[in-house]
């Protein structure tokens, strides 16, 4: 299966590098949203739970853009059929798409998190960064798994653009909740506090649970 995942992943990354449809849109959306928050809240800087909320809500909505595009090329250009005609484990497609979406989210955050620090965040990001990275990785994993599952379901419908947010947002509420709660101490007014480890554990549990669900149901989503 490793070879199949590598082939699928190479194709995913090549397509994104050629089309630049998902990642640039997600980055631009994130930065625009910070600007909107800046004016909407009428504040130059945010801290604590407000900062964590702004960051995670923005990243979640940006992720929705990527989730919406995840299977479009496969659906419109026969990639599904090409894959289904090959003698390969169908779970490879799930794994490759999750890794691809996870990678896209990481690339987006390389720009979006520093942009958040510059445009809105009160306390310095430097001190919070190592622990914030842990939360980002755990949250990205959850978003990638649930996003891939929802995208695979929605691509079979005519109202894909509507179905993705309607399904993904409720399912991802626990991710936003846990990530925001875990991040809040890191953005404290007086300097970064300790990471809320309990919430990181919640994120890890969520990731594990949905990875198992995705593994169990993904084959059925590809069935005719």
């Amino acid at each position: 299966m490793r070879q199949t995942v590598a082939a699928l992943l190479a194709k995913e990354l090549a397509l994104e590098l050629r089309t630049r449809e998902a990642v640039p849109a997600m980055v631009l959306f994130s930065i625009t949203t910070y600007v909107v928050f800046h004016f909407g809240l009428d504040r130059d800087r945010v801290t604590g739970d407000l900062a964590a909320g702004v960051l995670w809500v923005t990243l979640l909505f940006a992720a929705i853009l990527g989730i919406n595009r995840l299977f479009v090329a496969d659906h419109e250009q026969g990639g599904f059929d090409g894959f289904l005609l090959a003698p390969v484990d169908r779970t490879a497609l799930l794994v490759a798409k999750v890794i691809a979406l996870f990678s896209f989210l990481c690339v987006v955050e390389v720009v979006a998190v520093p942009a958040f620090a510059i445009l809105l965040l009160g306390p310095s990001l430097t001190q919070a960064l190592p622990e914030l990275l842990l939360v980002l990785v755990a949250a990205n994993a959850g978003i990638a798994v649930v996003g891939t599952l929802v995208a695979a379901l929605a691509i079979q419908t005519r109202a894909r653009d509507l179905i993705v947010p309607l399904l993904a947002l409720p399912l991802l509420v626990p991710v936003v909740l846990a990530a925001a709660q875990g991040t809040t101490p890191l953005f404290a007014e007086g300097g970064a506090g300790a990471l809320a480890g309990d919430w990181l554990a919640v994120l890890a549990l969520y990731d594990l649970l949905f990875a198992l669900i995705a593994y169990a149901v993904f084959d059925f989503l590809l069935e005719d």
Partner: protein
Amino acid sequence: MPANDHAVVLRGAGRRYGERAALRDVSLELPAGQTLVVFGPNGAGKTTLLRMLATLLRPHAGEVCVLGRELPDSGYAVRGRIGFLGHEPLLYRELSGRENLRYHARLHRRPAACVQEVLDAVGMSARADDPVAELSRGMVQRLAIARTVLHEPELLLLDEPLANLDPAAAAQVQPLIGRASGRTRVVTSHDPAGGLDGADLALGLRGGRVALLAPASAVTTAQIAELYA
């Protein structure tokens, strides 16, 4: 159910889309190495039949056996042994022909060298590194044929395979997908004379039902024309 020397066996096979039956009660046997040509007007069920044999659609009625395996349960066992050429080329437009074929070669566990071989065989080596989106429909069809035979399938399922090809290109791909390939073939066609040429068995579909099933040598072009009347 099937004799091992039959590549395709259908017994009362059917397929619905919602309430509409696209294919009803189709029964036939195609011995290995032979060619079945399928005629029928648009919407007759030709593409549905091919997609069902390719394991892309589940049969809703009857029995379908391909290369000695019953579908859909044993679909996984025959996928790598089937070459499917449908209306869509199954190629990513933003990738080059070579990148697309490399991707399919990896999925089918074929060595990278086979990509250049099939590109040469379909006469696409010179434009192999251009994005598929920049190629003419005929060139895309040649790449699609290369993709279809890349993994050396035993059974070819070809939906109007010569569509968009000029005569020279059509002649060039014959060793790959024509009778000379020596493979079992199921080919759809709208051309009575050209379709029957090189076929062993002729199937005519109308409204999803079998309207004609006979050895190709016994079928006249007038019988085929009647299907479209």
